């Protein structure tokens, strides 16, 4: 369906959200979960997925009230001056998240593939590639996602399936359900953080051909991503065990380097996953970069968003280079993610309430 009005269809929206969500967290999520909630990690993925669906429902049902407008406009319309503040915060959040994602992407490439290339080069190359794509608007981004999604998903599923079939030990998930409330909160939060990215929907709803199908498409997308995350977490912990998983920095990739039985058929499968890694990073960073530039253009009421993309690159680059090591970058991501949760659960509800009050109380 080659439309030229720069709008995306419902299937395209689903694919776009899936590829935005599947990003750099897939390799670190098992470690975070194993550390925080032990053998019940798989349960945390499910709870986290449900909570993300809830968040997506809030975000999209707010957006559907204003099918022609983005968050930038309707926040001002309903909340007045606070709307401007929230708009600024959203842009800052998106740019910081872009920077952090590109940093984690670069760290993995540097550790596993290009150990003598400066990380600056890796990050800038990636950003330059994303600029090239995002300058053409939302539709090419969505169509790229359509092309890349099967290339990304199929090998991941096949490879991890082989590993769990040959080396997995599901008794690593015993004892079952021995968590206190605190651990559930910590584990769930870790999962929800790895689902962050669908708040681009705050801005993308008017770009859809059918804005009223946005809730449906985000549900489908989050369901697919939850299944994939669950699969990867179960595989990694079943093969490595809780203790070893929590000790590794990138367990999702390390697990591919230590399994042997499947390796006799295809030795060194980590190479495949690492090449997919660039795709996963690319399809996550592009929509975020686009969302930031698009948001800025809407704030400034500019007709074009293109001119705002290139100035964002040095900003994102500087943010990416700010943490001094990987662990600090991961901590920074956790801090930023609080802001994401705020924009998913709190701000849309505020807007909905304000909108309801304006319509029902003031207009009467």
């Amino acid at each position, binding site marked *: 369906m080659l439309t030229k009005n720069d709008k995306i269809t419902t299937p395209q929206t689903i694919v776009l959200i899936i590829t935005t969500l599947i990003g750099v967290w897939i390799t670190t999520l098992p470690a975070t979960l194993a550390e925080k909630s032990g053998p019940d990690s798989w349960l945390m993925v499910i709870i986290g997925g449900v909570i993300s669906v809830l968040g997506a429902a809030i975000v999209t049902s707010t957006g559907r009230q204003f099918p022609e407008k983005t968050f930038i406009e309707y926040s001002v319309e309903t909340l007045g001056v606070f709307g401007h503040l929230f708009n600024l915060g959203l842009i800052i959040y998106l740019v910081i998240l872009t920077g952090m994602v590109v940093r984690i992407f670069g760290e993995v490439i540097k550790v596993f593939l290009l150990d003598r290339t400066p990380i600056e080069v890796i990050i800038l190359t990636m950003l330059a590639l994303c600029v090239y794509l995002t300058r053409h608007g939302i539709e090419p981004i969505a169509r790229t996602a359509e092309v890349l999604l099967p290339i990304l998903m199929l090998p991941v599923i096949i490879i991890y399936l082989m590993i769990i079939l040959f080396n997995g*030990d599901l*008794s690593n998930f*015993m*004892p079952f359900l021995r968590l206190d409330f605190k651990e559930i909160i910590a584990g769930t939060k870790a999962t929800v953080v790895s689902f962050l990215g669908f708040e681009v929907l705050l801005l993308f709803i008017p770009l859809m051909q059918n804005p009223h199908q946005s809730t449906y498409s985000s549900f489908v997308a989050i369901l697919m991503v939850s299944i994939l995350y669950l699969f990867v977490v179960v595989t990694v912990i079943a093969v490595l*065990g809780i203790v070893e998983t929590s000790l590794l920095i990138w367990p999702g990739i390390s697990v591919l*380097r230590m399994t042997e039985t499947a390796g006799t058929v295809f030795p060194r499968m980590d190479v495949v996953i690492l090449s997919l890694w660039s795709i996963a990073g690319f399809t996550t960073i592009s929509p975020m970069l686009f969302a930031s530039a698009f948001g800025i253009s809407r704030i400034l009421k500019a007709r074009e968003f293109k001119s705002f993309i290139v100035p964002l690159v040095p900003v994102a680059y500087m943010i990416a280079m700010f943490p001094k090591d990987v662990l600090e970058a991961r901590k920074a991501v956790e801090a930023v993610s609080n802001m994401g949760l705020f924009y998913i659960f709190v701000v849309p509800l505020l807007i909905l309430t304000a909108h309801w009050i304006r319509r029902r109380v003031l207009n009467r």
Partner: protein
Amino acid sequence: MKGKVFILTVLIGASIFFHGCWNMMDLEKKTFIMMMGIDALPEGQQDKIKVTLTMPVPRQLAGAEGGGGPRPETPQQILQSTGNTVYGTIRQITNRLSRQLYFEHMTAIVIGEEAAKGGLDRFLDVFQRNKDFLRMAKLYICEGKAEDVLKMETEMEPLVVTYINQIVHFNSSRSLRAINYSIGKVITELHETNGNSLVMRIRPEKKEAVVAGSAVIKNWKLVGWLSDRETRGILWMLKEINRISVETSIELQTPQKGLVVLDLVNFTNKTKAKIQDGMPVFYINMRGEARIVEKEERIIKKEENLERYEKPIEQAITKEINNALQKVQDEYRVDVVNFGEHLRKYRPDYWETVKEKWDLMFPHVKVVLNVDVKIRRQGIFK
């Protein structure tokens, strides 16, 4: 037109200048390390280690495999140096080398007896921290010096590393006398139990090596050995046996005169822990099949009653397991049979109370074995 010329120029220019070969490394500039040995130095220098590496000499290797003509010189070259740490010593070796060391094909690591007695923790970190080292490489602990294994002149295979890794490959699935743990598996095991595991044992001789039995690691240190029979006793109880279809033979003294040899296949085990008077009791149920491969009996019966061998074989397995258990419980006092892990998984409440003193409790744990073997086949002869 002008635009097209410009794009063409850019493309050609890019393909000349940006083809990404600026730090290309020719294959012949690299040397592929196949095997590493780590030894402790004798008295007086105990905090230092000696690292031995082997690299293949491709020219000799080609000759050795081609056959015909006199056998060439040994197809592998030995590199050695001493130092304080593993990686530091490897870097010292590069001082005398015209090529770059490349470790991603290293599939065997041998640690000498004395070095292992001083503790494995100081050697293993480098293999888990750097991605250059394969975690699926095999880890061996050697009786005597590790360098003897690397310097061995094997006759079956041109390279020592293929020779010993192939032994393990067949041994672990055919006769079940070696514990097939890669270095990644050993590290995982050591982390889970805080320093207790079994590692493959290797004993070098002049032209061949024996890979059988295992080294017992307690609190990251080598404390002793298990013989090949005892290792098999432990392997019956470990979960690994569920997954691979193992095959092993056992000799039986029959009620009549003479021995019977049986092959055991398709063994599965189920472990259950019950708490009695504050102490755990492990009930291990094992089932399997067997087939007769050799009989010394002279009497040939037309109607063979296969069941009469079942009782003795069950007793033989029980005895083997009990011997092995006795050794790890009474002599080494170390839980290498994953009983602690079983309690952690299936009796978590109880485990919380005994976690701290498990090392002291393990020697007194009772095990109730129930072995059930069915003899299905007797070969192609009555």
